[in-house]
């Protein structure tokens, strides 16, 4: 298994009361899998993705990437997994405002210089349809264009798994289709794709669909 969540629980306090963002979640995804997670707002979908990406630690249970438990890794080792194994597309807009689009896409090479590959960066910009914006700054882009920059940056690292939190939320129908086709291509190349979405049209691109409700994850569309 490429990535596995084993009885993962994550609690938060809201309004002075504890609630389960993740409640005993067991889940696994392997190379080339394309899974979609749906659920109402506040059901724990984003928490699940961030725990899976090693951006938040579970209160109990284990997250295992290629046999390595996150809880047993140092910050350097876990960061290396995020940088090399996982491509994370956050829900919010996460670009460096002072760098151009092309530099934002190439940003992982700042942390891992061995990843530097300008040709690949330009090819990804072409693929995501923002090649003409390469020298623009984030504040000059629309929400949809910014989303594509984040997707392009996640792809630049050639991750083994792409974890995307509502990647097509701000995109029009045509662009959504293009992006979903791109994800499908990736999975054909062996990249696992784990997607949270509210758009039912995008479910069709995946192999399986999971539903998140009150921190519990169940297979199928509820």
């Amino acid at each position, binding site marked *: 298994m490429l990535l596995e969540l084993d009885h993962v629980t994550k609690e938060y306090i809201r309004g002075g009361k504890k609630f389960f963002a993740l409640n005993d979640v067991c889940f696994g995804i392997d190379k080339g899998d394309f899974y979609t997670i749906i659920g109402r707002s506040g059901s724990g979908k984003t*928490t699940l993705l*961030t*725990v899976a*990406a090693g*951006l*938040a*630690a579970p209160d109990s249970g284990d997250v295992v990437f290629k046999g390595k438990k996150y809880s047993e890794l140092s*910050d*350097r080792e876990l*960061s*290396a*997994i*995020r*940088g*090399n194994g996982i491509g*994370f597309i*956050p*829900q*919010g*807009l*996460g*670009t*460096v*405002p*002072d*760098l151009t689009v*092309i*530099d934002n896409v*190439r*940003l*992982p*090479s*700042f*942390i*891992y*210089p061995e990843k*530097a590959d*300008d040709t690949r960066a330009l090819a990804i910009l072409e693929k995501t349809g923002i090649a003409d914006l390469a020298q623009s*700054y984030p504040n000059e882009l629309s929400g949809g264009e910014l989303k594509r920059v984040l997707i392009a*940056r996640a792809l630049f*690292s050639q991750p083994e798994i792409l974890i995307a939190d509502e990647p097509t939320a701000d995109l029009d129908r045509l662009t959504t289709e293009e992006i979903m086709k791109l994800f499908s291509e990736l999975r054909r190349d062996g990249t696992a794709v784990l997607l949270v979405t509210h758009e039912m049209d995008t479910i069709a691109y995946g192999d399986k669909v999971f539903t998140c409700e009150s921190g519990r994850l169940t297979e199928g569309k509820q």
Partner: protein
Amino acid sequence: MKPVTSMTIVKSSLFRRPLRSIGLSAVVALLCAAIFGGLILSSSMNRGLDTLEKRLGADVMVVRYGYESKAQGAILRGEPTTFYLDPGALDAISQVEGVAAASPQIYVATLSAGCCSYPLQLIGIDPDTDFTVTPWITGQIKGALADGEIVVGSKISADVGSELQFFKRVYKVVGRLENTGMGFDTSIFMNITTAKQAAHDAARVSSQELQDNDDLISAVLVDVADGYDVKEVANNILRAHAAEYHLDTVVSDNMFNEVSSSIRNFTSYIRFFEIMIAVLTVLILLIVFSVTINSRRAEFSMYRVIGATKGRIFSLILLESFVISIIGAVIGIVVMSEIIFPFSNAISQSIGVPFLMPSVATILSAVAVSILAAVICGPGASALCAAKFTSKEVYSTMREVM
């Protein structure tokens, strides 16, 4: 394409946010200017005091009663004055117990000279007995000062070989002294014979009567013998001859103590000012960097998302604040240099203590200390903020900014 490096990111951040960068640099510049200025001022005054002690060279200066403050003004601040002493006092003082050497000097104030738009102090020394000025004049000229020859202080604009005219008499400049930070810088030295002539010329011009003999003197400089207390010897001189010759004494220790006490007071004000500025600056830097880093939480969280370690985020924040601090430090030092160096004379006069520019090594040390303070305070403040930021879970920071 140029690779994306830490410096690329820092440069983009600085140039794309000029107001933020200028603001941060200005705060660091203020800190650096205060430290650099304080160091230069205090070391200048201390150097002035050291030179003063070395250059005067006498333990006691005996002058006519009532001229004590004028003598001090001439030596410390270069305030030209003319005064005379009963010449018989020289032999009498030489006989007092504890006096190892006594040498006469003549002090004559000029009206004006070709070199300067202000009066100067002429000081005549006796080359045969002098133990105060001769040792440091010797390095400037070959042999003893001949009649009609003069050595000028560092602030008098006359080249060696040129001529100056006082009271319609021409003198040849044979030497130029190093800067002392005291009245000697605006004084002119000549042998006692030449000085007597100048004194007579001065009296003639101002229509004053002056005794016409060879024993004209203004002061007697006394070197106290080893094992004797300077103040006691000064008192002995006064007890034995004050009434007869109308004497007063200036004890060099007292004079220097007064000056060094002024310097100590002034340097303690500077230290206090420096510490206040440093504390304020660190507090301001802490607040400003904290606000800046807080406003960039989304950006720094994003670096974590793409695989940056806590250490990498830390070093990126430190690098940016380091660059800002270096820029601020250079600005602070340059601005303070533009204030201190051209206006050193004005500063010296306004604080009323000798002021001598420090050596290049001291200036370089002050530059190094100021830059060090800047690179400790700036990145130090940002390191505290960065530590707070990186101690949080990435997702919790992301949730705050999303």
